[in-house]
């Protein structure tokens, strides 16, 4: 099951940029549709965090992972999950709180997970998913599976002490753990330099004994190359930290218009567009024609349009599922309050 990974970072074949581009385009288009779902009042709530501007992190790192590798994500994890093979229909249905979603409408955007794809879960607690990869790394070592476990999180999560506790453990025990910090410059309205005196976060990882690197997210190939290299080490028990610089194109969540950001800065930030950058490179290097790319865009647009129709057609989970899965299926479900009240009052 363990697909061997090249240890010397050979120059990636040209086809890679094409597949990276395709994945990034799918992510961006999916996220745009999430926005549409919200506008159409079909999403479960407004806590929707789009990863537009960060597609290279998802595509580049996930391409270095293989089947059986596990991962956790933060609240802005749609792209990562897609890049690990998620079904966009079931994702969108989950974002809509529908029964057909990955978590039957219980989890939503911030708690999407799929054990089949190694997704140990998105998390609405900043930093909350990080230590799980230490445990998954321990399990991988214990079972000699050769698998790695990767935690994806934002720059904001570097404020959480549990990140350092987790990295320290991973380094101490030489676990196959990868820590991926997607630095979109902001944690809600707080710019990274307003949250720390030294934004060179990878230096912290080094001080804990991990391999620590920082890469520009504009260039998916650079991300991909770094991830390949680090993952090869991680698989051999050299835990690593990778910080990927990008820019959060839109608000923190769907309702946020980022009034705290300088429009000029936003303008400039959005120039740092990994999708556009890859597209230009494909054309420039003659790897695709304008017509081919337009066709791809149409295809991906149609794929992602369908997720909305699919979601709208789905049902909310029935109330009867409310008590299910608090405990394992073989265990009794918690007694509903209403039943208890009736028993108390109907006592004779």
């Amino acid at each position, binding site marked *: 099951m363990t697909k061997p990974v090249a240890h010397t970072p050979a120059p990636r074949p040209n086809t890679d940029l094409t597949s990276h581009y395709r994945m990034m385009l799918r992510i961006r288009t999916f996220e745009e549709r999430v926005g549409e779902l919200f506008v159409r009042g079909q999403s*479960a*709530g*407004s*806590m929707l965090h789009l990863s537009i501007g960060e597609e290279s992190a998802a595509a580049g790192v996930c391409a270095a992972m293989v089947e059986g590798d596990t991962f956790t994500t933060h609240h802005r994890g749609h792209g990562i999950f897609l890049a690990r093979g998620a079904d966009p229909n079931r994702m969108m249905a989950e974002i809509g*709180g*529908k029964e057909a979603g990955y978590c039957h*409408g*219980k*989890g*939503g*955007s*911030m*708690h999407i997970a799929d054990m089949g794809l190694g997704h140990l879960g998105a*998390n*609405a*607690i*900043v*930093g*909350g998913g990080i230590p799980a990869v230490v445990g998954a790394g321990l399990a991988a070592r214990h079972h000699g599976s050769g698998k790695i476990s990767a935690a994806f999180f934002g720059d*904001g*999560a*570097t*404020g*959480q*002490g*549990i990140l350092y506790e987790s990295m320290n453990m991973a380094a101490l025990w030489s676990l196959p753990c990868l820590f991926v910090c997607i630095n979109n410059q902001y*944690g*809600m*309205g*707080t710019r990274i330099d*307003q*949250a*720390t005196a030294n934004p060179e976060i990878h230096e912290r990882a080094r001080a804990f004994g991990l391999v620590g690197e920082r890469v520009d997210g504009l260039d998916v190939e650079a991300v991909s190359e770094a991830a390949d290299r680090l993952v090869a080490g991680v698989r051999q028990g050299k835990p690593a930290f990778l910080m990927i610089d990008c820019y959060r194109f839109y608000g923190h969540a769907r309702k946020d218009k980022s009034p*705290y950001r300088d429009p000029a800065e936003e303008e400039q930030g959005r120039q740092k567009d990994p999708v556009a950058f890859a597209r230009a490179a494909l054309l420039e290097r003659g790897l695709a024609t304008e017509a081919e790319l337009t066709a791809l865009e149409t295809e991906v647009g149609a794929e992602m349009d369908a997720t909305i129709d699919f979601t709208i057609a789905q049902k*909310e*989970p029935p*109330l009867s*599922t*409310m*008590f299910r899965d*608090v405990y394992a299926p073989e265990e009794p479900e*918690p*007694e*509903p*309050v*209403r039943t*208890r*009240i*009736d028993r*108390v*009052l109907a*006592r004779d």
Partner: protein
Amino acid sequence: MALQELTYRDALRQALIDAMRENPDVVIMGEEVGRYGGAYAVTKDLIKEFGGERVIDTPISEPAIIGAAVGAAMAGLRPVAELMYVDFIGMTMDQLGNQAAKIRYMFGGQIGVPMVLRTQGGTGRSAGAQHSQSLEAYVMHTPGLRLAMPATVADAYHLLRQALTKPDPVVFIEHKALYTMKETVDLDAPALPWGTSAVRREGKDLVIVTYSRQLHYALEAAKKLAAQGIEATVIDLRTLNPLDFDPIREAVSRIGRAMVVSEGVMTAGVAAELSARITEECFDYLEDPVVRVAGEDIPISVSTALETGSVPGAQLIYETGLKMLGKVPA
């Protein structure tokens, strides 16, 4: 003096402004409290008047935020630490429960920790299992921590103002579904004293004891019950520590039937404490056991149907009231 229409959010905000103008040692610290203006906009623009040294944007470090507030309070400031969601209290319970709550006692009364921890909880935004909880029971179960949970606009203002004069740590839990609620209030009118409950409605058939958002559901249910000939007394606790028990004892002893309503999960929650206490103090007057109407013993779903179904609302309170008086809900 002046009656005005105010939202719960703006009342909270006004309380902070007035306290900060009055006492230069009041500082606010928390995630996104400054430039962003607070996740629920309670601290909107405060940074403009008071500056970044008094409205302090912190990194996302809940344990250290609370811990720093503890130290600040001991060193002469009057910190208002903001925890964006009460759901995050789990990572701060050491600083809150082992430090803030116990320092006065452990140190033999040498010093207190006069800080306020402002946070918000509850369902209503389809925010899922980690952003929708009602965790006040953890706080109520921790000696040394005061606990205020305002349900009305006037209380949002006054309880926060009062909390900011208290010598001991106060956990102040707002309800996310109430921020946009408007009421006409006169903030200059005399306030109810700290640590007293309020009888929000008088009725001879049934006592409903509740707090925070469930007060509004209880009042709605009471109205519907009245249409069925059942008159409920509705008591709003306002603060859960101190707990003002006398009015409850008085009402339940007179009326003989009590329902306690809490949005938190039922088992080992606030409703259990209220039920046990009422039974202890009013046993001989009770016609029925105290009935607990509380959150289901399950996590909250993001699905709006399941979310709403997981916690009490006016309908459940109404139906329970009918049943308690021997009537069958339609």
